[in-house]
């Protein structure tokens, strides 16, 4: 096997035993990038020089006998939504085409301090708005399983980069499914932690009350390892939770005996591709065979999830994106007549269609006279959805569902039909609205394309969620790879 094909935990052993050097590992990953990037197009920015400098640093540490952490020397890609000091950060938008941040986001900083070797910044739907990465202001990323298909989104580049072995793992952000959906479509593991577990400081906000950073990895063990170093209270983020940091790798126990698993019937209903349903039913059987108690449950209010989400997220976005005005940074129209002209044309030229659509939706929803009917009502629905989950979690340790209603669709298939595109996140959005942790693990294929199983945990119930995902992974034995 090539080094770029291995997992974090496999590579860590090789680095510690000096079987390989961080430089050799970086060389392997960059040779893979040279080989496939032209076809996959995962990266907006590749940081080769910085990566080799960092690999050198790690090799010196190893040579001097210093103990290194499990992420040291591991080639890592970062979604271009997270600020990286001195390294261009575009958020997939023309409006930030030339933007070089002056600070690094807390999540990335935590990993850099652990010694990751950053390979670059990955492509995404502009401002994380989309489910296919077709809304990128730069180019479309391809699904490594079928280059004619989308990798999902909005973190499509961070999913394809791991699926195509252009990085050992990556970070994405998930507002309505933007980690779990592309992970499912690209046949890898993707996880969204409990809201507040990972600092959002330095994550360019889409919808502040929903956004959460999480990892894309090749297996659940790697996910737990990354999570260990990603989380922690951050004084720079008022919404970040204060908890004693658990060791999530301790939760990786291959034992489901007595674990109760609920299957919300609303997430197995019409709208889910029957072939996907069949794959999920097989997965449920496997869980049961391993000792879990699996039963159908109901989340009656989640049918309103999409409606509530498409009020709340655009409302917050309309305010969050107001700062992109050409005054202090980013794109500014060169020949503005006056202030209003500068604002209007900078934003008209800098933002893409989907971003403008959501800004308009959100502005409308917050307008005087409409607030109660839209934003106020959506917040009430959100509370009802949380109550539904709380009731279900009184009976079950975790909930499972398909991650997506379909497998990866064709590039261009849904670009002219926003509503069809929005339905791609029907299984993942309720989890964001409730602030819960969710993970997608590969559970099979349909017509040669991967399918994801979503495991939803209780608030701060990452350990149980990881245990179920790990046990499933161990008994399912997924080993398929895209052929590139």
């Amino acid at each position, binding site marked *: 096997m090539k080094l770029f094909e291995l997992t974090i935990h496999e590579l860590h052993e090789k680095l510690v035993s000096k079987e390989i050097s961080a430089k050799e590992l970086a060389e392997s990953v960059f040779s893979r990038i040279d080989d496939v990037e032209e076809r996959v197009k995962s990266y907006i920015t590749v940081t080769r020089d910085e990566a080799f400098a960092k690999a050198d640093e790690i090799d010196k540490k190893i040579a001097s006998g210093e103990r290194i952490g499990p992420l040291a020397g591991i080639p890592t890609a970062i979604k271009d939504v*997270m*600020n990286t000091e001195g390294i261009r*950060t575009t*958020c997939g938008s023309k409006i*930030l085409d030339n*933007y070089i*941040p*002056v*600070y690094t*986001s807390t999540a990335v900083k935590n990993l850099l301090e652990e010694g990751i070797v950053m390979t670059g910044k990955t492509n995404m739907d502009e401002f994380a708005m989309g489910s296919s990465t077709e809304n990128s202001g730069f180019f479309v990323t391809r699904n490594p399983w079928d280059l004619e298909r989308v990798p999902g989104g909005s973190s499509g580049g961070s999913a394809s980069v791991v699926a195509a072995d252009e990085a050992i793992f990556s970070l994405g952000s998930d507002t309505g499914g933007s980690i779990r959906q592309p992970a499912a479509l690209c046949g890898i593991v993707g996880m969204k932690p409990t809201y507040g577990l990972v600092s*959002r*400081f*330095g*994550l*360019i*906000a889409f*919808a*502040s*009350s929903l956004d959460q950073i999480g990892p894309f990895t090749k297996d659940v063990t790697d996910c737990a390892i990354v999570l260990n170093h990603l989380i922690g209270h951050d*004084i*720079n*983020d*008022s*919404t970040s939770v204060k908890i004693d940091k658990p060791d999530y790798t301790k939760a990786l126990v291959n034992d489901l005996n007595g674990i109760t698993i609920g299957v919300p019937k609303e997430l197995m209903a019409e709208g889910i591709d029957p072939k996907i349903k069949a794959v999920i039913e097989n997965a449920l059987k496997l869980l049961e065979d391993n000792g879990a108690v699996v039963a159908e449950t109901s989340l009656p209010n989640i049918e309103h999830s999409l409606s509530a989400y498409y009020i709340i997220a655009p*409302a*917050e976005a*309309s*305010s969050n994106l*107001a*700062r*992109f*005005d050409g*005054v*202090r*940074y980013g794109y500014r129209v060169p020949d503005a007549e*006056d*202030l209003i002209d500068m*604002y209007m044309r900078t934003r008209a030229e800098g933002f893409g269609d989907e971003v403008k659509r959501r800004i308009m939706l959100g*502005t409308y929803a*917050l*307008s*005087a006279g409409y*607030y109660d009917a839209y*934003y106020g009502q959506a917040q009430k629905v959100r509370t009802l959805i949380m109550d539904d989950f709380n009731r279900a979690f009184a009976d079950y340790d975790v909930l499972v569902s398909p991650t997506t209603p379909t497998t990866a669709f064709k590039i261009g298939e849904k670009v002219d039909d926003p509503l069809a595109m929005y339905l791609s996140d029907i299984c993942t959005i309720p989890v964001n609205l409730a602030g819960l942790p969710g993970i997608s693990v590969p559970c099979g294929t349909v017509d040669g394309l991967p399918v994801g199983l979503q495991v939803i945990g209780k608030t701060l119930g990452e350990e149980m969620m990881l245990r179920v995902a790990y046990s499933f992974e161990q008994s399912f034995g997924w080993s398929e790879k895209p052929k590139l």
Partner: protein
Amino acid sequence: MEYESVIGLEIHVELDTESKMFCSCSTRFGEAPNTQTCPVCLGMPGSLPVPNKKAVEYVIRTGLAIFCDISLFSQFHRKNYFYPDMPKNYQISQYDIPLCIDGHVDLEMEDYATTIGVTRIHLEEDTGKLLHIGGAGRIAGADYSQVDFNRAGVPLMEIVSEPDIRTPEEAKTYAQKIRAILVSLGVSDCNMDQGSMRVDANISLRPVGREEFGVKAELKNLNSFRSLQRGLAYEIERQTKALQSGEAIVQETRHWDETKNTTSTLRTKEYAHDYRYFPDPDLVPMEFDPEWIEGLRAELPELPDERRERYMKDFGLPAHDANLLVETKATGDFFEAAVALYSGDAKIMSNWILGDLTYYLNAENVEIDAGEVKPAHLVEMVDLIDDGTISGKIAKEIISEMFKTGKMPKAIVEEKGMTQISGQDEIAKIVDDVIAQNPDAVQEFHDGKERAFGFLVGQAMRLTKGRGNPQLINKLLKEKL
């Protein structure tokens, strides 16, 4: 028809915290542009606000001082509008649940007392400052504009009054009272020149006896208490004329022009913003422990009203003096320090502070605690009057000199030979000279014209270059005439 004015004030006050409202940048005034900034107060992508607990505490202390109800649950909202001095194009402010509601301030006017209700006090962040280059210095017509974000994110407290104010004098007294309270609390220096206290006024007229409000105008750019009073007086005149001639008042924002003494339209209602307020999802709602709030209440310092009562009771001062002395904390502190050093009547000290000293301070625009004249200067000077070394007239010259140089009165008296002439013979000789040189006035005096006597005393003082003992001159002049 006779009209009554209905006035409400919105007072914005920058809080005297070390750091800004949502980041750790310094709040110091007057630093080089954009040197006190960070990703948070510049609205860089991905930055997040973290509330300044001290600022929250300051607002609650203010609320306690003016008898507000303190909200045990409160939250921040976003107020959305575009302007280049706003880094995020929304201001973090408060909306439906401000920190404090339903307070009041008692006012002692010259010949009556009144109470002004306070609707709410809320906390928000200040904006940056714009500098328009070219044109008239306003954004319209400027060649280009520059932004200084040093002020962006400084904690800003807004105190909104009920429309209980009826005259420009009440408005001024209310604003001064608020300032005195805030300075006593130590929550702001309330420096109107530096913009750390800014007053906007809403004013409408209604026929006397009517309940409903008329159409209001909002006055901006009231940069001093004087502007506040004059701007409102102008606006009352303008609106009265308009109403009397049957014109409708337009709801609008008007700009007070200090040099032209007029107000002019800044923007009308059609341009009113829809701020699209919604709870800021980056901040968690605030909840307060009632015990903590009671602790703050117990720690409140002496406030101007209490101080005023004490001055009247302990020092026997008339209400007029006591009111003026507590107008700023520094004046009261100066007075008390002086009284502590002085063995005579506190009213004498009050007279000097509110009279000559205030005259010089106002003329030179110096704060009482920043001037050269300290309580010890004033007390030494009054002691010199009391023991007959100098006259009151000389004292006035000494204040002027102390104000300029900071020298002690005794030193000035010695240096300039200003001691009072109290020698019987010396004065007698001068009185003789005056009588000899002014036969007309002497004749007028004998004809019963009292004024002539004053003139003769003045002449004697002139001959002694103001150093003659006035009582002695009076006495001898009367005898000799």
